[in-house]
């Protein structure tokens, strides 16, 4: 790809989705453009970029969405899910005992494995049978990923990475070589296409936000802006989980890390020990 085509593409994607496209990833990026080229009938990358320069909005959107990394697996970073279950959830469940309501957001859900992993943990606790209502939103930039997540069908390979066989048997139905998530878990989650740069007006009073392995693709300013807006929609005693490689140096002053739950963060003004001493 010509340098000026690459920098045009990088600027466009950064403006639309916040994603940074480093120059050394040009071959990977060209690979990701291939599917968009096929879909829109372009024979070359320069022809596609030329059309982008002329302000083709649907194309620009498709290109931005194609640049996301959709790598995911069930219970990815198992330790974080254990901490979620053992350290983060119990005090929240006590604190919400009167309202019996939990509000959760999986902010970059890809094909839904993270959201369904959380749903399996909640299902083990039988909260809904005890009269709780769970508002569980899962969003992704890519409409294709949201469609896959809503379908809830996973390959032989996907269900064998991170998912205990007991959970597979308990929560999925076999369909040939694929496995379909059970309806009770699928209905627990509301999937929705959403750009993290857009307005968070439809989200509020969240108890738990999972925002893992997405901020690392953003520049510093975008990271800060996203984290500040997450802080605004998070309850004072709520918790944010970041990816294991996303160290606190990216955090604005709005968040502090929780001593007993690595990778989990609380809003800065809140009394941290309440969450941290449990477990």
């Amino acid at each position: 790809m010509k340098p000026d085509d690459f920098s045009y593409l990088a600027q466009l994607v950064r403006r639309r989705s916040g994603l940074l496209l480093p120059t050394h990833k040009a071959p990977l990026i060209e690979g990701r453009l291939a599917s968009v080229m096929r879909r829109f009938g372009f024979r070359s990358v320069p022809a596609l970029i030329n059309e982008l320069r002329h302000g083709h909005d649907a194309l620009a959107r498709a290109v931005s969405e194609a640049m996301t990394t959709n790598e995911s697996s069930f219970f990815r970073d198992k330790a974080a899910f254990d901490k979620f279950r053992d350290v983060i959830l119990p005090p929240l469940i006590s604190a919400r005992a009167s309202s019996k309501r939990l509000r959760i957001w999986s902010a970059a859900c890809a094909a839904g494995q993270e959201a369904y992993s959380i749903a399996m943990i909640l299902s083990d606790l039988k909260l809904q049978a005890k009269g709780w209502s769970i508002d569980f939103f899962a969003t992704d930039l890519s409409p294709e990923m949201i469609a896959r997540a809503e379908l809830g069908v996973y390959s032989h390979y996907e269900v064998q990475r991170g998912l205990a066989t007991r959970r597979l048997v308990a929560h999925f139905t076999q369909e040939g070589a694929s496995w379909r998530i059970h309806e009770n878990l699928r209905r627990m989650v509301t999937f929705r296409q959403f750009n993290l740069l857009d307005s968070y007006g439809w989200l509020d009073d969240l108890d738990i936000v999972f925002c893992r392995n997405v901020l690392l693709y953003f520049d510093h300013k975008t990271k800060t802006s996203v984290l500040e807006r997450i802080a605004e929609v998070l309850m004072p005693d709520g918790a944010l989980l970041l990816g294991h490689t996303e160290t606190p140096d990216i955090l604005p002053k709005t968040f502090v890390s929780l001593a007993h739950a690595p990778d989990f963060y609380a809003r800065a003004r809140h009394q941290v020990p309440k969450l941290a001493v449990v477990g």
Partner: protein
Amino acid sequence: MKHCLVVNDSRPIRKVACRILQDLQFKTDEAEDGASALAHCRSQMPELILLDLNMNMNSIEFLKTLRREHGGSRPVVVFCTTENDVARISEALNAGANEYVMKPFDRSIIAAKLAEVGLA
């Protein structure tokens, strides 16, 4: 170094499994049928058993017999088989299997399953 017994009636598949496990830092031994696998367990109980038997004593019979042996509840038993239907999987779990790998498998699936049972 942890010790794994690969129990399988196909020699080529035993070799593939052993190579993956050695790569994952296991000492491996092989058994080609249930009787020799039990004999092996009686002399040296492994930490992990990767199990796929179809002939003579099948995997379920072997597992039930093993779990009744002295020290036979200790090893982590992972089924590793082409029989991928849910009834078979449930049967194996109910008989005392810790995990179940559906074929075709590769190194990353084996590694993920061993992490699942705390042996990675």
